[in-house]
């Protein structure tokens, strides 16, 4: 059946070129950002746009990095993003478990309350939160960047969906074996929700790593500031920004996430492929 082979070959060809096209569409801006970071100022504004810089300017990165206490910002960003995750995982797992598997008085109301927090954008509640955190003396500390996010309705919702998928029989069997609740959570529920938890962890880390608005409002000087603020400072208004330096800063911002992705990719993929019905 030569034509069938040909068909298969053709489909693969389409498939691969389709994937290539898709990749290009999505990676294109990212590549542009990367290349721009190496250009000279003139090359960033010229038209028609120059793709590959005629000469490479890696000193842009040095300029960006030394424009402020970047190592300090970097450390803060890491502390905040990890600190948030550290608090979020347990709070989310517990709450999701309760919402998914327990019947209790006021469950719908409390879940509704949880969902309401999803609807409030930061640009609206920053003022009352600023006042509250100010009363607690936490403005301009890392806590003001961590505590408001110590739990996440998004996470609870996502993990609840996974938890609801666990067959009751599994849990009953475990209980028959006299397993305690925390053992059930740790040994049955969490592994079942692993793809969801990983997805959420990625989402949370990236979101808070890239967050500009909240640290801008909650910090008044460099002591608790994070990377995005350091990069914003590279911009200027009445005189036009030095885009090549700004892009270098953005590359610095993105690099750690890429690194994590790279290192953890196999682990992430494995977690996703895990089908856990047994």
């Amino acid at each position: 059946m030569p034509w069938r082979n040909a068909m298969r070959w053709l489909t693969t060809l389409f498939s691969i070129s389709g994937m290539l096209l898709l990749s290009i569409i999505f990676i294109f801006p990212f590549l542009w950002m990367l290349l721009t970071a190496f250009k000279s100022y003139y090359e960033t504004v010229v038209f028609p746009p120059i793709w590959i810089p005629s000469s490479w300017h890696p000193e842009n990165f040095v300029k960006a990095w030394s424009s402020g206490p970047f190592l300090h910002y970097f450390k803060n960003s890491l502390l905040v993003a990890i600190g948030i995750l550290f608090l979020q995982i347990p709070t989310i797992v517990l709450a999701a478990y309760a919402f998914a598997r327990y019947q209790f008085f006021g469950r719908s109301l409390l879940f509704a309350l949880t969902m309401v927090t999803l609807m409030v954008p930061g640009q609206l509640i920053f003022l009352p939160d600023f006042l509250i955190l100010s009363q607690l003396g936490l403005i301009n500390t890392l806590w003001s960047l961590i505590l408001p996010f110590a739990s996440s309705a998004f996470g609870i919702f996502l993990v609840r969906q996974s938890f609801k998928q666990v067959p009751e029989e599994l849990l009953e069997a475990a209980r028959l074996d006299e397993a305690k609740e925390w053992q059930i959570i740790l040994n049955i529920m969490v592994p079942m929700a692993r793809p969801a938890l990983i997805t959420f962890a990625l989402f949370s880390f990236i979101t808070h790593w890239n967050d500009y608005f909240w640290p801008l409002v909650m910090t008044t000087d460099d002591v608790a500031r994070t990377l995005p603020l350091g990069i914003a400072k590279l911009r200027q208004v009445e005189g036009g920004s030095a885009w090549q330096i700004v892009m270098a800063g953005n590359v610095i911002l993105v690099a750690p996430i890429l690194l994590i992705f790279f290192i953890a990719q196999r682990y992430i993929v494995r977690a996703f492929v895990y089908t856990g019905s047994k």
Partner: protein
Amino acid sequence: MTTQTPLSIKKVKSMKNVMPRQQAPFSWHAYLMILPSLSVFLIFYIIPIFYLIFLSFHDWDLVNPVKQWIGLGNYFELLQDADFLQVLQNTFVYTLLTVSLLIILSLLTSLWLNQNDIFTRFVQGAIFSPYIISLVSVALLWLWMMDPQYGLLNAILTWFGLPPYPWLDSPDTALYALVLVSVWQGLGYNTLVFIAGLNSIPTDLYEAAALDDTPSWKTFFRITLPMLSPTLFFLVIIDLIASFKVFETIAIMTGGGPLNSTNMLVYYIYQYGFRFYKIGYASAAAVILLIILSILTWLYFALLEKRVHYR
């Protein structure tokens, strides 16, 4: 589903979600487990909401120590303001378009990319990349690409013999241009979540279908989709709420223009609160936003959750 015999499709469909529930209604266990999350929410979200509601009944410019009580004055004014109604419409249209496109496209993409070879892994990474970069980094590029005279997108269109599109330059098209950017941003993440969902479907279901010689579209609608329904349920409402809350994209790319055509709720609120010194008015708009979203979410849960197939 813990048995080894492959099930036929009919049996899967008829399996109802009848699981005996846990304990009695006043469960201390449950309350204790929810407590940490709930405290965070209460302090940092619920109390601020009440503060906003409180502010919405006042006329305050944020600097003056005196707040003026005006009851429902702000609400009346809002509902009569043509700009606000325009903003509401913009938000609805934008949300509708973005969510539908996102869900459909990412579902299709996830089916296509649900393999584990090196190519697919690369593509998965590629479509996820917009998510990693904050929009600020690439907003400039998008603005340039969408330039009606010199941008890449129109260059591509004209190369195919199509007329150039005004993109962000015209009040009639700017909204759709933003939808494009948002879909581009969110596709990767949505696809990933779908793939996660696809991978949690037990393979024996597919085996059973194959045994019965089921055509692939039937497999899709009878097995895949129902099994994906929890994920689908989750993503639709999450995308919906996120679209309603859009702010950065507008702030960076259009500033609400041209001519208010891309002005959306949260941006409008922020403008009025912190640029125009009308925080009471802005809070009233915020309350309306919350009410709309709450109603939508409640409807969503009430009507659709029962159709979700949990195991």
